[in-house]
């Protein structure tokens, strides 16, 4: 077993060479990072500025450019864990179902009698009908509004759960539809958050779904969690509603179908508006910051075809009437319609500064969050602290490596050198695998690497101790080395598999730092088995062939 075929030697060395190549970009972290940023910018914009071309030239295109992602604790940035209020959507669905159900029941007024919506918990639509004996008919009508659930698990089920008792008919979403809706709501929120963060153009944000209704957002380089929250926390729900009345009475009764909303820029002023909007922000196709005819900041917007049509029809029928532009339950402005707007474009102006109009345009372009979010976890890590951690991590890794190498060499002499080479190659391989995978290095991750340095020699120690024993038992050198390797194998495998199990559990059950640590630990296990068994053996064999030693002192 001590003669390793040529192709195997080549393969081992090639793998290590590849590892070195892929780990190398990390030595030139800033240059590679700027190069990568320039490449993404060029892809997104379709052109490159002078600066970007220069940054791109800082690192050759043909070299690997993957980097170890630095975690928030090393780079600084903000971390948010948000919970999406998926139930919000149930209420919205029921509210929008009401006019439909009312019209459908009203068509059968002779049979079911008068229809009235009564108070019910959010997410339920309860109506009272005049002729309770015709309830079966009413239920049938309501059922006519239901559609099958469009999801794999809920296929074949109806989206509405309808129940009746006495004169009351209650409609709510079925469980299957609720599950499907929750999923859609979270997906949509995720997408919108991603778009909002991308608009600001920060580097490599992490936006992940977590569990049923949670979203994890990590943005490196942003000043604080507060800033991030402002960016994504606004729902930006934009609607255009007919105005019924303008008042200064905060307790005015709006009447059914109407709501009372405060004005954004005139304190103490309230508008009574119709609850059902003419057009909503979802019909927008574009929004950009601009200035109105008085030179004040404003936002220009454009509707899609169907929105433009509805807006045109409404404005032509209501010339001289005010209509309200409502953002997140506040009236931005309530201009009077002077002429029909059929072009599908318009302008929002009101009390805002340039920054405000830019942000509003971003929010409108990205679309509204389908439901409100609350934040369960917020973390801000300052960039200085991150830099301190990197420095401390680097220093302690170097000292740890030097200490371990010195100890190994003192204990095993030349074989200790071989083991040390294997350990150093091991660390490089870990970095290269992490760069290839785009894995994130955190502070606990650095500790994981340091621990790997400590334990990676374990496989070598097991082998060397075994060789020592074989030598003491009087075996010839080559035989002792050979047997040492093969006898130690079972212990090495068992030991590493158990550690691997622990790392897997950490990965699947852990979150945050635990997960990052598990990733480095797992990669370290795999690479350390490779370097301890294959690389060390190759080094020993090369040494035997080159020096042809007569005896071995170990």
């Amino acid at each position, binding site marked *: 077993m001590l003669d390793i075929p040529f192709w195997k030697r080549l393969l081992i060395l090639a793998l290590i060479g590849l590892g070195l190549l892929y780990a190398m970009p990390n030595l030139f972290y800033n240059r590679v990072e700027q190069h990568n940023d320039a490449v993404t910018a060029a892809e997104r914009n379709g052109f490159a500025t002078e600066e970007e071309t220069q940054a791109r030239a800082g690192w050759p295109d043909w070299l690997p450019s993957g980097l170890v992602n630095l975690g928030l604790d090393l780079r600084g940035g903000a971390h948010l864990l948000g919970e999406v209020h998926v139930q919000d959507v149930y209420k919205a669905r029921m509210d929008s179902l009401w006019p439909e159900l009312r019209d459908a029941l009203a068509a059968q007024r002779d049979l079911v009698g008068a229809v009235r919506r009564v108070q019910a918990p959010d997410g339920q639509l309860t109506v009272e009908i005049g002729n309770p004996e015709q309830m079966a008919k009413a239920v049938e009508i309501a059922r006519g509004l239901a559609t099958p659930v469009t999801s794999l698990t809920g296929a074949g089920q109806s989206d509405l759960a309808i129940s009746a008792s006495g004169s009351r008919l209650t409609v709510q979403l079925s469980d299957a539809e609720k599950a499907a809706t929750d999923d859609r709501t979270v997906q949509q929120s995720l997408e919108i958050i991603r778009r909002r963060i991308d608009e600001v153009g920060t580097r490599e944000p992490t936006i992940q779904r977590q569990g049923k209704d949670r979203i994890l957002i990590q943005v490196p380089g942003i000043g604080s969690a507060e800033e991030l929250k402002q960016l994504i926390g606004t729902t930006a729900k934009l609607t255009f509603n007919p105005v019924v009345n303008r008042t200064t009475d905060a307790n005015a009764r709006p009447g059914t179908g109407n709501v009372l909303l405060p004005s954004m820029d005139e304190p103490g002023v309230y508008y009574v508006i119709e609850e059902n909007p003419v057009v909503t922000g979802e019909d927008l196709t574009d929004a950009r910051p601009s200035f109105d005819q008085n030179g004040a900041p404003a936002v220009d917007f454009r509707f899609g075809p169907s929105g433009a049509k509805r807006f045109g029809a409404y404005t032509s029928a209501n010339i001289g009437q005010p209509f309200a532009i409502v953002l997140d339950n506040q009236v931005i402005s309530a201009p009077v319609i002077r002429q029909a707007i059929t072009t599908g474009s318009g302008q929002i102006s009101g009390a805002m500064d340039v920054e405000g109009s830019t942000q509003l345009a971003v929010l409108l372009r990205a679309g509204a969050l389908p439901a409100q979010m609350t934040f369960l976890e917020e973390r801000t890590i*300052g960039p200085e602290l991150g830099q301190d951690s990197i420095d401390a991590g680097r220093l302690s890794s170097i000292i740890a490596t030097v200490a371990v190498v010195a*100890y190994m060499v003192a204990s095993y002499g030349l074989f200790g050198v071989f083991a040390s080479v294997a350990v150093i190659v091991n660390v490089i391989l870990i970095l290269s695998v992490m760069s290839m995978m785009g894995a994130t290095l955190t502070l606990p991750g650095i500790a994981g690497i340091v621990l790997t340095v*400590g334990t990676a*020699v374990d496989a070598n120690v097991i082998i060397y101790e075994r060789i020592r024993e074989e030598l003491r038992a009087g075996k010839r050198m080559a035989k002792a080395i050979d047997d040492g390797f093969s006898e130690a194998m079972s212990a090495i495998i068992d030991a590493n598999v158990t550690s691997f199990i622990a790392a897997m559990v950490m990965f699947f059950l852990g979150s945050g730092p635990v997960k990052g640590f598990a990733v480095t630990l797992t990669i370290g296990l795999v690479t350390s088995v490779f370097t301890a068994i294959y690389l060390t053996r190759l080094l020993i064999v090369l040494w035997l062939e080159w020096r042809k030693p007569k005896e071995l002192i170990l």
Partner: protein
Amino acid sequence: MAFRLKLVPDNTSYNFFRWQWLTFGISALAMVVSVVLVLVMGLNFGIDFKGGTTIRTESPTAFEVGDYRQALNGLDLGDVSITEVFDPSFGASKHVAMIRIGTTDETGSVTPEQLNEVEAALQTVDPQVVFAAVESVGPKVSGELIKTAFYAVGAATICIMFYIWLRFEWQFALGAVVSIVHDVLLTVGIFSLFQLKFDLTTIAALLTTLGYSVNDTVVVFDRLRENLIKFKTMPLIDVMNLTVNETLSRTIMTAVTTALALGAMMIFGGDVIRGFVFAMLWGVFVGCYSTIYVAKNIVLWLGVKRDWSKPGPKEKTPGEDIPAAFRDAP
């Protein structure tokens, strides 16, 4: 003769079982003491598990904790604790404090407005103070985090037990698990004793410790199995002593290299990570001890099937159960 550093002589023949009742008694006592400590003193849970807000301040000028406390007194924040952080790596112009604000009400963390007030109040005391890190966790999440952390430790233990049962015998699996429980309890106990901050990273350290301890145990078990086949008639206790003596050199070597690496991290790794590294270092120490004095005692008392010639599990030749891919290595 070339120089070789040997912490363990070549041929040792210590009797590790001479004091087996004493050592096992100490272990059992330590486990009980740990549980009592946790019950009586509790754990110093970080905000990961307890909810609340922590603020790390850094300032070039020295400050008095009392001044900070006074500045925050009027803000009605509930439970506030301020500690000054010392670290050898800090220069003379770096003064760090950790301010922890407990959960105030059902919303859990401090509101952004309160946070602004806190920052403003501290800046009036020390205009140069900067806020290096601000973290807050709501009680809803913290409750879940503590639950999943326990699941993680539990699941890892069960998976490892299952693997050892597959590869060895059930007695070995039980021995390994008792030693894992021993290590975990003792680590949690020392965290309680010194009131060190117990958070998510501590759990990661605990799981690593667990991996290391099992690693250590498995290497000894592996040799034990081999010796059991080799010395069919030797009393179990003697086989075990022989095994530990044979593997002692390796156990010490690996513990020292790991301790060297972790020691470097402990001294030079900065204060942010010190608790985490301490947990691992302690774990290495306890793990070593438990391999020799806990795991094997259990196996000794339970006994293992010795007569492999009778029908029963097939006798294994050394190396036979190594996956073919590795057996055929160069």
